C-alpha cells in the first residue's frame, strides 16, 4: 500500500464519519459544523487527485461561502442549540441494509468496468496555465465578464431583497 492510498483512506474515513454525524447529531448547529468538516474532506480528496484548482474552489465556495450561509441561516432559526431528541426512527436498520446493498451493487458493477482497474498516474504539472486562462476569461470583456457581473448583481439583488422581506416579519412580531 502506497502512502497516497493510506492518506486517501484516512481522508475518506474523516469525510464519511463527519457526513454521518451531520445527520446523526442532535444539535443543528453541530450538524452545520460537521458538514464543514465533511466538505473539507472532499476538498482533500480533490487535492490527492491532483486537482488543486477544484480543491481550492471547494474550499472557497463550499466552506467559505455556502457553509457560512448555512451557519447564518441556522443562527436565524430558533432553538439553535436545543436537544431535539433522537435523530433516527425504528426503521434505521432497514435503511442501513438498503444503503449497503446499493453500495455493494454499485461497487460490484464498477469493479467489472475495465477503466476502474487503471492505476493512478501522476499528471505532469502544467504551471497552472488553465487556471490563468480561466481567471483572465472571467475579467475579459470578450470572455465571461458580462455573465460574471450579471450574476454578481443578481446575487446582490437577492441579498437586498431577502433582508427587505425578512425585516418585515421581525417588525410585525415585536
Amino acid at each position, binding site marked *: 500500500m502506497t502512502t497516497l492510498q493510506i492518506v486517501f483512506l484516512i481522508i475518506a474515513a474523516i469525510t464519511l464519519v463527519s457526513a454521518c454525524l451531520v445527520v446523526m447529531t442532535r444539535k443543528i448547529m453541530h450538524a452545520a459544523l460537521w458538514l464543514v468538516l465533511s466538505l473539507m474532506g472532499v476538498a482533500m480528496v480533490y487535492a490527492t487527485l491532483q486537482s488543486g484548482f477544484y480543491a481550492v474552489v471547494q474550499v472557497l465556495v463550499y466552506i467559505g461561502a455556502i457553509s457560512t450561509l448555512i451557519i447564518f441561516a441556522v443562527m436565524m432559526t430558533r432553538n439553535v442549540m436545543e436537544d431535539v431528541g433522537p435523530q433516527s426512527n425504528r426503521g434505521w436498520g432497514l435503511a442501513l441494509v438498503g444503503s449497503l446493498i*446499493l453500495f455493494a*451493487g*454499485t461497487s460490484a*458493477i*464498477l469493479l*467489472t*468496468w475495465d*477503466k476502474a482497474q487503471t492505476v493512478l498516474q501522476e499528471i505532469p504539472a502544467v504551471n497552472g496555465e488553465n487556471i490563468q486562462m480561466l481567471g483572465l476569461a472571467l475579467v475579459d470583456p470578450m470572455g465571461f465578464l458580462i455573465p460574471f457581473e450579471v450574476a454578481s448583481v443578481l446575487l446582490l439583488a437577492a441579498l437586498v*431583497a431577502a433582508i427587505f*422581506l425578512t425585516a*418585515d416579519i421581525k417588525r410585525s412580531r415585536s
Partner: protein
Amino acid sequence: MNANTAFTLVIGLPLLGTPIIYLLGRLWARQNGSSNAANPARWLALLILVATGVFTYFAGVGATADYAGISLNFGGLTLTMDGLGLFLAVTVLALGILVTLFSVPYMQAEVGEEKFYALLTAMIGAIIGLGCATDLFNLWLWFEAMAVASYFLVAFYRDQKASLEAGWKYLVQSATGSTLVMLGIALAFAATGSLRFDELRLAAASADPLLLAAGALFIIGFGVKTALVPLHTWLPDAHSQAPSGISAMLSGIVIEAGLVAMLRSLGILYATSQVWGYLLLGFGALNLLVGNLMALRQTQVKRLLAYSSLSHVGYMLIGFGMAFAFAMPNGAIGGFFHLFNHALMKGLAFLAAGALLYALYIAKGHHGPLVLDDLNGASKRYPLTAFCFSLAVLALGGLPPLAGFMSKWQIFVSGFETGSTVAIILVIFAALNSVLSLGYYAPLVNRLYRGQPSQTVQEGGKISPWMAAPMVILALAIVLFGVWPSLLTNLTSRAALGLFMLMGG
C-alpha cells in the same frame, strides 16, 4: 409569430415570472396586511400562464411542422421541443391554468398566498422544461426544479402537523430517488462519455453492465416520483394533505412528469437491453393491483383518489411497456392519451373533492379530511359539483363514452396486437382491474345521489363560480374527448413519435 421566439418565451416566461409574482404579491401583502382583498399575485400568475399557453400554440405550430421539432441553443445547452415536449407542455398548461382559476377562492386569504402562485408557476415552468431537455443532466435539473417547487406546495399548510409530515416524507423519499438518478447519470457518463441523448443512444448499443445498472437506477429513482408500487408510500399522504389544486397537479401531471423523464432516459438505453419493457409491464401490473386494493379500503376521499392514481399509472406503464417490449406504436400513443385523459379526469375529481372540502371544512376554518360519509346526499346541496365528481369517477372507472374508456381501450388494443400470450393475459388482467376499480368508484356516485345529507353537508357553505368554472370546463373536455377521441390523435401520436425517435426506431 416566429416559432423560435415563441419557444424561448414558453421556457422563459414562467421562470422569469416566478420571482415577479412573489415580489408583487409580497409587497402587496405588506401594504395591505391581512385584509381579505384580492392579492394581485394570482392575476399575474394567471396572466403569465395564459400567455405561456398562447406562445405554446405558436411554438407548437412550428414544432409540428417537422419531425425533429424546434431547438434553442444557449451556449452548450440545447432545448428541443419535439412531439413529447409539446405534449407535456400542453397537458401541464391546460391543467395548470384551470387549477390557478380554481385556487382563486380556495387560497383566498391563506397566509403566504403569493408563495403558492409563485411556486405553482415555477413548477409548471420546470415541467415544460423537463419535456424539452436534450441531455440527461438537464433532464435531471428540470426534474429537481419541479420537485423542489412541489415540496413546498405539499407542505403549504405549514402549521398543520399532518401536512408537514406529508411534506417531509415526500422530501426524504423524493430526494433519495433523485440521488439514485444522479448515480445512474454518472454511470451512463462513465460508460459512454456523453450525456446528450443522441450521442448516448448511439453509444448505448452494447449490453454494458454499467448501462444496465444506470437503467435500473433510472427506474428506481424516477420511479419514486412516478409512484411505482414499492416506492409509492409518500403519495397518499402528499396527495391528501396538499391544497386541493396541488393534489390535482401532483396526481394529474407531476407523477406523470416523472414517468416522462423515466421514458426519456430508458428510451436512450433501449438498445442496451430488452428487459426495460418487461419491467415496465411488471410494475404496471403491480401498480394496478395494489392501487385498486388499497383504494377499496380508504375512508377519506382524497386518499382514495390518491390510491386510484397508482392504478392509473399502472395503465400508462402497461401501454409504454407494450411500446418498449413489443415495439407497439399503439401502446405509446395509448399511454400518452391516457396520461392526458388522466390529467383531466383526476384533475376534475380532485377539484370537485376540493370544492366540497372547502365548502364543508376549510371555509369554516378547520382542516379536517373529507370522509366518504360527507358525500352522502351531497347532490341535493351541491348538484353541479356532485355531477362533475360523478362524471370524473365514472370516467376514471372507464365507462364509455367518457374519455377514460377511449384511452384504456387503445392500450388494451395494443396488447392484443402483439399476439403474445403474456401480453394478452396482462391486458385481461388490466381489464379485470378496471372492473374492480368500479368497486370503489360506483359507491361514491351512489353516496352522492342516494344517501341522506349529513349535518355537515346541510350546514356547508356555497361553492364560488371561480371553482365551478374549471370543473365545468374539465367535465366538458372529458365528454368531448370521449365521443371524439381523434381530436387528440395528432398530439399523442407525435408524442409517441418523439419517444420512438429517442429509441432509434
